[in-house]
C-alpha cells in the first residue's frame, strides 16, 4: 500500500476577481522508499497541492473543495488542526525553497533544530541537543559543536539548507516534502544538496515528494514523476517513462525546453568589436578596508557578431563585468575598447553617443521596466532620445519594435504590471533594441522565467541577434543555457577568468578543476548529451 495516496484533490482560491481552482481533481501516490517528483511551472498548483495536505495554506483565501489524502490509512484532509499538528513535523516534514528566509533570524540554529524533537517526542533539551549535533554532522555541517549556537545569518545558503534538512529529519519522519529545495542555490551547491537528499532518503528508506519547476533537476534522483499544468495532473509515470516516452504534449514541451547541445560554431574569423584589457572593478575602497575585488584583472575580446557566454556562480563577478562594460559601475582600472575607443574615459556627449551603441537586457523583468510607464512610453523614450524616429514617426517605430519582439500591437497602451514575465522580457528586449545597438549585454535574461518561456525568449534573442547583427555578452549561471546560445564561453570564479573556449571544447575537455566541478554539477547531465 502506498505511504500517501491522494485522490481527487481540489483546492480553490477566492480572489478579488472570483474563484480560481488552483488544484483540479488530482490523484497520485507516494511510495515509501521512493522519491516522487512533482513538476510544473509557476501557477501549476504543485506547491499548493502539497501545502493543502498539511493544512499549511491560509484559509481563506484557500479552501480544499474535495478529495482524500490517506497517509498510513488516515485521511489527512479529514483531520482537525490538532490531529494534523501531531503529524506535521513528526511523520511528515518539509523543506522549503529559500533557506535565507525559512529559518527564524532571531533564534539560534540549535534552538530551532531541536524544537520538533522537544515538542513531539518530549525529549529533554540536553538529549535533543545531542541528537541535533549528530544530525548536523550527518548532513555535512562542519564543526557542528561550534556552529550550533550561531544565528542563521552566520551561515551560507547551502549550509542553511543543510540545517533545514536536519530539522526536517530530526523526528525521523516517514514522508519528506521538499519544495524546490535547490532553486535558490548555486549549481555546485545544488548538486551537493541533491546528492544529500537522495543519500538520506535511501538510508532511511522514507518517501519523498520533491517539488520542482525543472525536469532536469529531478532527472537523476526521481523514481516517479508527476507533471502538472494549470492545476491539472497531465501525466505521471516512472522516470524512464517520462523521459523516454512522454505521452502528453505538455510534458514533451517541458522536455524540449531543456536546452541541449552546443551551438554550431562558425569558423569565420571576424574582427574584434570589444577588447577588454586588465579590467578591475573593486568596491568599497578606502578607510583602510580591503576592497571587494568583484572583477580582478580580466582580459578578453568579443568578435563582431559573436555571442560570448559568461558563466559563474554567485559572487563570481559575472554581472559586474557586464555593468563595467556599459559604464553602469565605476571601473577601477583597465581599459574597455569598443570599436577601438576606450569607453572607460568617456564623458558627456561622447558617452551618450556610445551608450546608444551598447545596451543591456536585465535579469528581472519585474524590476527592469518603470512601473509607471506604458509600453509606448518605454519604447518611445530611446527612439526620441537618440533621434532614431521623429515625433511624427515614433508611433510607427514603436509598433515595429513590438512586431519584432512578438508583442501584439494592441498592447501598446498597457503598463508593465498587466503583462506576464515573458511578455515583460520582450518589452525589455524591445527597449534595448530601440537604439539600434551593435552590442548587447544580457544579464541572466531568462533565469527569472518559467522553463517553457525561457526557451521562447532564448530563441527570440538568437533570432533578433541575427536579424540586427548583434554582438552579445550573455551572462548566466546556467551552463546548459550558455552552451545552447553562446559561440564561446568564459568561466569565471571569484572575479577571475578560469577558463575559456568554445562550448564543445569546454564541455568535452575541461582543463581546469573548477570547470570540471561545475560541469559535474549540472543536473540531469545525461539529458544534455
Amino acid at each position, binding site marked *: 500500500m502506498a505511504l500517501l495516496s491522494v485522490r481527487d484533490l481540489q483546492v480553490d482560491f477566492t480572489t478579488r476577481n472570483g474563484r480560481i481552482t488552483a488544484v483540479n481533481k488530482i490523484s497520485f501516490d507516494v511510495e515509501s522508499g521512493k522519491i516522487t517528483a512533482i513538476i510544473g511551472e509557476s501557477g501549476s498548483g504543485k506547491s499548493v497541492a502539497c501545502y493543502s495536505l*498539511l493544512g*499549511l495554506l491560509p484559509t481563506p483565501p484557500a479552501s480544499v473543495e474535495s478529495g482524500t489524502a490517506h497517509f498510513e490509512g488516515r485521511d489527512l484532509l479529514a483531520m482537525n488542526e490538532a490531529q*494534523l*499538528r*501531531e*503529524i*506535521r*513535523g*513528526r511523520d511528515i*516534514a*518539509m523543506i*522549503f525553497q*529559500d533557506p535565507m*528566509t*525559512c*529559518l*527564524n*533570524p*532571531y*533564534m539560534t540554529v540549535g534552538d*530551532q533544530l531541536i*524544537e*520538533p524533537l522537544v*515538542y*513531539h517526542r518530549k525529549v529533554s533539551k540536553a538529549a535533543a541537543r545531542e541528537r541535533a549535533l549528530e544530525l548536523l554532522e550527518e548532513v555535512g555541517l562542519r564543526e557542528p559543536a561550534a556552529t550550533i549556537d550561531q*544565528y542563521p*545569518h*552566520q551561515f551560507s545558503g547551502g549550509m542553511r539548507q543543510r540545517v*533545514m534538512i536536519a*530539522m526536517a529529519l530530526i523526528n525521523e519522519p516517514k514522508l519528506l516534502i521538499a519544495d524546490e529545495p535547490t532553486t535558490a542555490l548555486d549549481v555546485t551547491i545544488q548538486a551537493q544538496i541533491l546528492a544529500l537528499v537522495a543519500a538520506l532518503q535511501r538510508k532511511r528508506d522514507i518517501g519523498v515528494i520533491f517539488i520542482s519547476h525543472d525536469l532536469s533537476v529531478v532527472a537523476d534522483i526521481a523514481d516517479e514523476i508527476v507533471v502538472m499544468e494549470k492545476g491539472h495532473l497531465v501525466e505521471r509515470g516512472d522516470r524512464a517513462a517520462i523521459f523516454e516516452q512522454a505521452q502528453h504534449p505538455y510534458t514533451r514541451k517541458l522536455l524540449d525546453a531543456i536546452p541541449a547541445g552546443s551551438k554550431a560554431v562558425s569558423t569565420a574569423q571576424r574582427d574584434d568589436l570589444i577588447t577588454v584589457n586588465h579590467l578591475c572593478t573593486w568596491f568599497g575602497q578606502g578607510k583602510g578596508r580591503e576592497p571587494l575585488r568583484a572583477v580582478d584583472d580580466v582580459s578578453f575580446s568579443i568578435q563582431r557578431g559573436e555571442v560570448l557566454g559568461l558563466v559563474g556562480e554567485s559572487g563570481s563577478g559575472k554581472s559586474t563585468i557586464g555593468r563595467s562594460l556599459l559604464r553602469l559601475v565605476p571601473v577601477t582600472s583597465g581599459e574597455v575598447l569598443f570599436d577601438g575607443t576606450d569607453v572607460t574615459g568617456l564623458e558627456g556627449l561622447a558617452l551618450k553617443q556610445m551608450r546608444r551603441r551598447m545596451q543591456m537586457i536585465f535579469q528581472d523583468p519585474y524590476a527592469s521596466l518603470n512601473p509607471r510607464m506604458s509600453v509606448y512610453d518605454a519604447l518611445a523614450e530611446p527612439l526620441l532620445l537618440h533621434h532614431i524616429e521623429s515625433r511624427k514617426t515614433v508611433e510607427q517605430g514603436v509598433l515595429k519594435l513590438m512586431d519584432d519582439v512578438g508583442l501584439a500591437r494592441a498592447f501598446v497602451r498597457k503598463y508593465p504590471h498587466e503583462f506576464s514575465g515573458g511578455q515583460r522580457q520582450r518589452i525589455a528586449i524591445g527597449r534595448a533594441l530601440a537604439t539600434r545597438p551593435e552590442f548587447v549585454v544580457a544579464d541572466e535574461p531568462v533565469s527569472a522565467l518559467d522553463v517553457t518561456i525561457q526557451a521562447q525568449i532564448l530563441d527570440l534573442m538568437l533570432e533578433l541577434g541575427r536579424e540586427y547583427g548583434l554582438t552579445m555578452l550573455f551572462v548566466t549561471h546556467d551552463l546548459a543555457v550558455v552552451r545552447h546560445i553562446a559561440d564561446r564561453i568564459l568561466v569565471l570564479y571569484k572575479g577571475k577568468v578560469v577558463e575559456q573556449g568554445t562550448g564543445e571544447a569546454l564541455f568535452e575537455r575541461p582543463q581546469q578543476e573548477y570547470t570540471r566541478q561545475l560541469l559535474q554539477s549540472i543536473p540531469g547531465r545525461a539529458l544534455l548529451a
Partner: protein
Amino acid sequence: MWRFVGGRLLQAIPVILAVITVTFFLVRIAPGGPFDSEKAVIPEVKAALEAQYRLDLPLGQQYLAYLRDLARGELGPSFKYPGRSVNELIAAGLPATAELGAYSLLVAVVLGGLAGVFASLKPNSAQDYIPMSVAMIGICMPTFLLGPLLVLVFGIHLEWLPVSGWGDMPGDKILPSLTLGAAYAAYIARLSRAGMLEVMSQDYIRTARAKGLPEWQVVTRHALRGGLIPVVAFLGPAFAGLLAGSFVVETIFQIPGLGRFYVQAAFNRDYTMILGTTVFLSTLIVLFNLLSDILAAWLNPRLRAQYGEA
C-alpha cells in the same frame, strides 16, 4: 555590542551640547529681561540682581560660566523663586512626573501591545477591526481633549474618580495616566499589529507551523520578537512625546510635576528655570532614545553582530 553602546553614547554628547548651547543663546536673545515686568525697580537693585545672576558679564563668559556650573551638576538659581535653585525645583517636580510617565508608558505598552498582537492574529475580522477602531480614536483624540472629557464623564458625572491631584486621594492617578498613555497605546497598537502581520507572513513562520507547533507557540516563540522590534524602537520617540504630553496633563489635573513647572516658568519668563529644565529633559530624552535604540539592536542578532564587529 559594547562598542556600539559606547559609540552611541559618544554621539549623544554633541547632541546634548548642541541642546545646551542653542537653549542658552535662545533664552538670552529673548526680548525682555526677567525683571522688566516689575515696573519700577530701582536701578541699584536691578544691577545687584543682575550681578547675582551674572547678567552683567559678556554673553560668552556667561555661557562658559554656565557650562562650568553644569559640569558640577549645578543648574543655577531660579529667577522667580529667589533663594531656590533650579536643581531643587526639578527635584521637587521630578517624582510626580516620573511616576506619571512610568504609569503612562505601562498603559501604552501593555494595552497597546496586547491590542495590537490580538488584532494581528485574525486580520480583517471583528477581532481586528474593533481594537483598531479604538486605536484610531486614540490617535485622533488629542490628550488635551481626552483629559477634560474623561474628567467630565468619570469625575463629574459618574463621580467615580477624583478630578485632580496626585497622590492626595485614592485613585487620583488613574485618569492622568490613562489620559497621557492613551495616544501612545494607540500608536503602539498600530505598530505592533503592523509588525506582527509583517512577521506572520514570513517564510520562517511557515517553517514553524510545518514543525507542528501549536499556534500560540508559533506566535510567542517565533513571531513576537521580530514583531515587537518596531515597538521597542518607537519607545524613544514615545518617551519624548510623553514628556511633552505631561505639560498638558499636569496642567489639566493640577499635578505638581516638572511639566507644570516648565509651563509656568515659560509664562513667568523664569529663564534659568527654562534653561535648566530644557537641558535636563533633553538629556533625559536623548538618553532614552539611546536606550531604545540599543534595546532594538540587541533584540536583532544580525544588528548585534554588525555592531559587535564594527
